[in-house]
């Protein structure tokens, strides 16, 4: 039995331990905010946090999160940085089709946790694994800078 927490709640799973966390979250835990885009860690749509660090859940076997803490887009608003990032996304009118945006936001939150005032190069490095076929990138960049400013102001 694999046990872990998702967004603070306890979960236990005794199915295929090789099943990627992505499919556990979406199909078993009904947390569909985390998206499937490529299945090979090339697009970032499936980004979640494990023990606070961003990972691509499509290539993360559910067994590997045993005893760990998983956080998804559904709980982003419960964290100060997540909330700021989501607000910046709304203010900057970032999403178009929206499908990639859960992953974008989770990557952005992870970036701001480690680098509260990222440079453009930092953003390129942290965000280039997240594809947006609608190419909302300039607005993502602007929204990250805007969230960083508010973060600095609130600190």
């Amino acid at each position, binding site marked *: 039995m694999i046990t872990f927490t998702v967004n603070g709640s306890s979960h236990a799973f005794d*199915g*295929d331990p090789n*099943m*990627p966390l992505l*499919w556990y979250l*979406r*199909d*078993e835990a*009904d947390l*569909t*905010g*985390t*998206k*499937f*885009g*490529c*299945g*090979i860690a*090339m*697009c970032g*749509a499936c980004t979640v946090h494990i023990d606070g660090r961003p990972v691509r859940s499509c290539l993360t076997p559910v067994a590997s999160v045993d005893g760990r803490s998983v956080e*998804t*887009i*559904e709980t*982003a608003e419960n964290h100060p940085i997540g909330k700021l990032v*989501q*607000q910046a*996304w*709304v*203010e*900057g*009118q*970032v*999403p*178009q*089709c*929206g*499908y*990639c*945006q*859960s992953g974008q*936001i989770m990557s952005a939150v992870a970036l701001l946790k480690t680098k509260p005032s990222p440079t453009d190069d930092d*953003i*390129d*490095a942290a*965000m*280039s*694994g*997240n*594809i*947006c*076929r*609608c*190419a*909302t*990138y*300039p*607005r*993502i*960049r602007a929204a990250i800078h805007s969230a960083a400013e508010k973060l600095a102001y609130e600190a």
Partner: protein
Amino acid sequence: MKRNSTRHEPHDGFVGLSRRQFLGGMGAALTLAVSLKSGIANAASLASEAAADAFAPNAFIRIDEAGKVTVVSSYLEMGQGTFTGLATLAAEELDVPMRDVSVVGSPADLRYANPILEAVFGRPVQGTGGSTAMAGAWNQMREAAATARQMLVNAAARRWQVEPASLSVTDGVVVHEASGQRIAYRDLLADAAELPVPENVQLKSPDDFRLIGAEQGTPRVDVPAKTNGSAIFTQDKKLPGMLVAVIAHPPKLWGKVQSVDSSQAEAIPGVVAVVEVPGDDKIQGGVAVLAHNTWVARQGRGALKITWDDSQALTVGSEAILSAFRDLAEQPGIVAEARGTLLDDAPEGGTVIEAVYEQPYLAHSAMEPMNCLVDLQGDRCDIYNGEQWHTGDQSAAAEILGFETEQVSIHQLYAGGSFGRRANARSDYVREAVTLARTARDQGIEAPIKLVWMREDDMRATQYRPLTVQKSRMVLDDAGKLLSWHWRIVGQSFMEMPEGAVDDSLVEGAKEMDYDVPNLRVEQHNPTTFPVPVVWLRSVGHTHTAFVGETQIDEAARATGQDPYQFRRSMLGNNPRALAVLDLVAEKSNWDTPLPEGENGERRHRGMALRTSFGTVVAHVAEVTLHTDGSYVVDRVVTAIDCGVAINPDVIRAQMEGGFGFGLSFLRQGIVFEAGSVVQSNFNDYPVMRMNATPQFDVHIVPSSNAPSGVGEPGVPPAAPAVANALAAMTGHAYHSLPLGGSVATS
């Protein structure tokens, strides 16, 4: 840019109306049911029994007891801000704030036919495409909302025994200035429902626009749900007892299943069934594995042992197709446009520019791989889909099932991108899902089934932007004036064409070009020799014609010592709209001032391109840095656009940014066939633009009072040529074939 941060209540925003509710709301024009029950008219309650709560004077507008407005969209929201545009038009004419308006997707019904596509196809179709939503809704939605407003105002006038003309409306409250009386819409619904529908309603004069064209107050209606994971796409939709299907498609296009050994797949815990999906002339088909969980279904697919019958399969590769098309490019084709007399040779001192251009098949690669949920129960079928081709897909499903179209309900969900992919004349993936559901039912499986394509299916078993070979020849006189242009386009047509007929989409942008060219001949070959399924991709024929036309113009300018901007200007004398856009982009990009060189003396240059598509004129100027190793980056893009009335300026800017980004990927990507199979499989070998390649944008919208035209597509065509022109200006090489790749020869 800062936006008004008014938040709409997050909701999944996308529950379609069922057919029954639809007819209930619309059937008897004005015997409007206004229930005494209270309830918020959000998407959720509309989909429930409470549908009759609404004041519904027409197919598009409903107002509930709390005064909340629901706009019914006949169009798909696939990212282009369509829902927001519709909400803006409705809120404007109704005089309500945007926060009181939500949008739901309509069911498939010809009463929601797209007025512009109807004109194109000569028959009513409900669908979204060709950047038509705002152009089509401009009158339709405003009239629908103005009608509702007039009925509510008339109701107040009757109540107060005053002239309707003496009343005004602010934020959903009718006001009689003289007496100071006020009444909210929500208190007038029952009265209004009893009044006759006015025949002719007065639309607002543009001077009175409060929301249309506003920089504030019209945030996108779908954004909150798209920042917290609550927006529901087909991928996310679940029904009780639903099974997920992952399908093995033929490795060679159009291959058929000869035999399948499914024993290992069926042995995987959680696999429910294995179902063969017969392919036909429209779908690939294959073998589907059904499970309660996508991963299990996918594991099951991997364990299938299938022997394929390739006797009808595509066997050739892109090289053979290119080679056949190259031959055709040398032969006269079907004439799409001919004016004047072509010149064979340049006059004394003149110049001939001739080249053959090749562009590959492209996959749309929307972020959400194709998928479709089918719930087949007895004599009805419910389809949940990011639905872009409503009535076409409905008819296809009915045909497969032997149903009347009324037995098929389509529930429109948010689409995780489409770029033209989901509007498909073959209804391919919907057809595949419905065929699967039918076959599964015949095997005794009674469950809703969601067919989920993996990314590899979305790249290898899909439908492609056509590969083209184009031959283009310009003749210029000694003063550099373009005298004659002969342009031949070879590619599969976007739709089935009668033998010898012109597919206008294949030659669009060449046939009716922006420039004034005295002697022009545009020909096409649309061979059917190679059965690669093709479909329009964001901006259709312009995806391949803009690159040829706009880079050859630069090549001609370079060859004759002219500035590409001035050369274009000289040919736009009869096209004041395009000229104004070109002048604006030149001014805003400081075209006449050279770019400073980059770090370490790296070369930097601007490139420009112009293209009118779908009634909208767009010009991009790209500022490009060429690194010493030949790699290049677009630093900044200046864009000018004339799309008529700018309904939502910020949405327009977003579409220019996104359209450029989408078009920029053309420089890097291509789908290649080898022996009937697609070589590429996923984003590892099909590069798309990422954050680290993203330029800054500066978008300028030409003020206009003309009826609006679309913005979803027109940002795409001039993107790749603008960048190629900048590179060519630095390297002196003209680029005739795509993809260019990530680097170019520097000298």
